[in-house]
């Protein structure tokens, strides 16, 4: 019966190992969900800081440099907030993060907020850092397509299936029958977009400005043919639910004031922002040209119409955004929302209430001291 003895000993060990692993794993799977955080950085001074969870369309990136800069220059700490990033992706609606309670504030698309409200949601936009559309349509620089009317009979590559409604709206506005245009979902992989354009498998590409910039930085010459009014629609305005705003108003204002200061640094001291971005997101600088181009794009996209009202809301471009959705048939004319009610600019003055010279000095000091 020697074998039985041996077997018993090792079976017990195996069982113990499996049980231990199970306990650890269940602890890991069911545990609190704040362990991956870090994008938001420091906890602020003296334990007074209030946590705020914000949702961005990307992991920490130079494309959204204000969070990197605000953390590095201590703006979040000054405002007594401890931000935590909840990065999203195309597959998850940014407004869903608010609905599920996974984020307090969310940088959503204009159409996501309009759609959420048209379905009865109470989402409101309170801050809009990018006064330029981040989505658009490009063609190879040498293409004979000059504007949207030239797309007829061509094949258009899409960033994702979601881009269809954006394309449909632009085609309808240009008087092009969408049935005359073929589409193919190409994704966001730079090499793949470049290759399909180069091979002529697609004649235009609907996607994100950051993808266009990365391609251009790597010698893929492109021309943007996005209609002017569509190009003016804000990219990534900040959405919040009214109850959260009531409950966390101070923290939200603090977070956005820190953001606005950091956004301002980008407008006045690019070198410091680059230095911080290189330190915080080194992976984005593995390809120098792409890194430089992404930062230039981010700074350009975040150039405010009025430097004293960073993040200001512009009802007219929201009207355009809604028109795009109606034109594309995404929402019915009867389901349109009252744009004025969706926008709450009551915080903008408070968010911009800080000394520009002090912020410039802080950036100078960082640039000189590091």
């Amino acid at each position, binding site marked *: 019966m020697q074998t039985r003895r041996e077997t018993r000993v090792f079976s017990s060990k195996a069982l113990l190992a499996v049980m231990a692993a199970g306990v650890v*794993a269940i602890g890991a799977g069911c545990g609190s969900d704040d362990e991956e955080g870090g994008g938001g950085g420091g906890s602020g001074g003296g334990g007074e800081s209030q946590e705020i969870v914000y949702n961005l369309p990307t992991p920490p990136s130079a494309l959204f440099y204000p969070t990197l800069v605000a953390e590095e220059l201590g703006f979040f700490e000054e405002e007594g907030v401890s931000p935590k990033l909840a990065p999203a992706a195309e597959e998850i609606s940014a407004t*869903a993060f608010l609905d599920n309670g996974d984020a307090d504030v969310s940088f959503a698309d204009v159409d996501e907020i309009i759609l959420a409200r048209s379905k009865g949601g109470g989402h409101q936009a309170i801050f809009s850092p990018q006064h330029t559309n981040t989505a658009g349509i490009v063609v190879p620089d040498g293409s004979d397509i000059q504007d949207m009317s030239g797309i007829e009979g061509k094949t258009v590559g899409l960033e994702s299936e979601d881009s269809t409604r954006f394309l449909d709206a632009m085609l309808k506005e240009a008087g092009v029958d969408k049935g005359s245009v073929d589409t193919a979902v190409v994704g966001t992989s*730079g090499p793949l977009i470049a290759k399909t354009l180069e091979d002529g498998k697609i004649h235009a590409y609907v996607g994100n400005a950051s993808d266009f910039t990365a391609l251009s930085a790597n010698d893929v010459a492109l021309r943007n043919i996005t209609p002017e009014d569509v190009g003016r629609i804000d990219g990534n305005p900040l959405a919040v639910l009214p109850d959260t705003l009531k409950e966390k108003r101070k923290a939200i204002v603090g977070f956005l004031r820190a953001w606005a200061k950091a956004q301002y640094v980008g407008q006045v001291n690019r070198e410091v922002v680059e230095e911080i971005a290189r330190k915080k997101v080194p992976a984005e600088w593995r390809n120098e040209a792409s*890194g430089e181009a992404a930062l230039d794009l981010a700074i350009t996209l975040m150039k405010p119409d009025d430097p004293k009202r960073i993040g200001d809301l512009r009802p007219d471009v929201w009207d355009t955004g809604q028109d795009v959705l109606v034109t594309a048939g995404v929402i019915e004319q009867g389901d349109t929302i009252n744009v004025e009610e969706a926008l709450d600019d009551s915080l903008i003055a408070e968010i911009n209430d800080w000394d520009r010279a002090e912020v410039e000095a802080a950036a100078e000091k960082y640039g000189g001291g590091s």
Partner: protein
Amino acid sequence: MARRVLHALSPARLGRRLWPPLVFLAILLGLWELALAVEYVSESILPHPKDIVVSFWELIGSEFVWDDIGATLWESVAGFALGAALGLALAIPSGLSPVMRQMLGPYAVALQVTPRIAIAPLIIAWAGFGYSSKIWIAAIIAFFPVYVNALTGILTVDEDAREMFRSLGASRWQTFTHLMVPGSLPIMFAGLKTAAGLALVGAVVGEFISAERGLGVLVQQFSSQLAISDAFAVILMLMFLGLLLYGAMEWLERTTVFWLHDARLVARSRRRAAKAEKKMARDGGVPSGPQPTLAGRR
């Protein structure tokens, strides 16, 4: 032990073991370079192997990539452990009770045939954006092979051996721990090895959808920036992680199910024999413990 390791690492032995895969690798690299040289494939899509190696070493030498490796490894290991624990926890009662088997079986199969990548965004929306969601995705993907293999292992225990246990008056618990568990371990480990690799897939899928860090995030980042050799280098890292997880399970299997491996069984028997002889010499009598034997070899 040291002699065995030295023997295993001797140049002649290593050479004999390594030349077939190395020759295949050389052929593969040759074809790769040829495809690039004749411009069958664009360099913007498929970089030169040497560029990938350079990127790999540069990334390994950088500080930031280790955070991403750690994140993916943690999600995979925790997801695997959770999936395996759930798989075993459900397979054991299913194996022992036909009612439980009928109760759980259809749902386990339904979960398996559901494309779990499609529900990954929902899991992230439910479980949050941190590690938990990625761990759950990895666990759900890793669950099925463990469940099915453990159940199969328990159900295919030798009927004669079971009859013998019954005739010797073994209790249900004794039959379970002394016969069913050891009997099912080899099949169970086959499931665990499959699950270890799948857990890594689950973790990376979760990172593709929403994550702050991880190797999946890096692949996407490098790919969108056209840093294609870096993206390939990260894929190489993922491959090594997969091999590490598989190797860990292989090692655990060899240690736990030692009777399936002749050399280990003989070595263990020798050690026991030596121990018994020592004890006999010390006591000056017949060893009281059982004699080493190969009778248990299956």
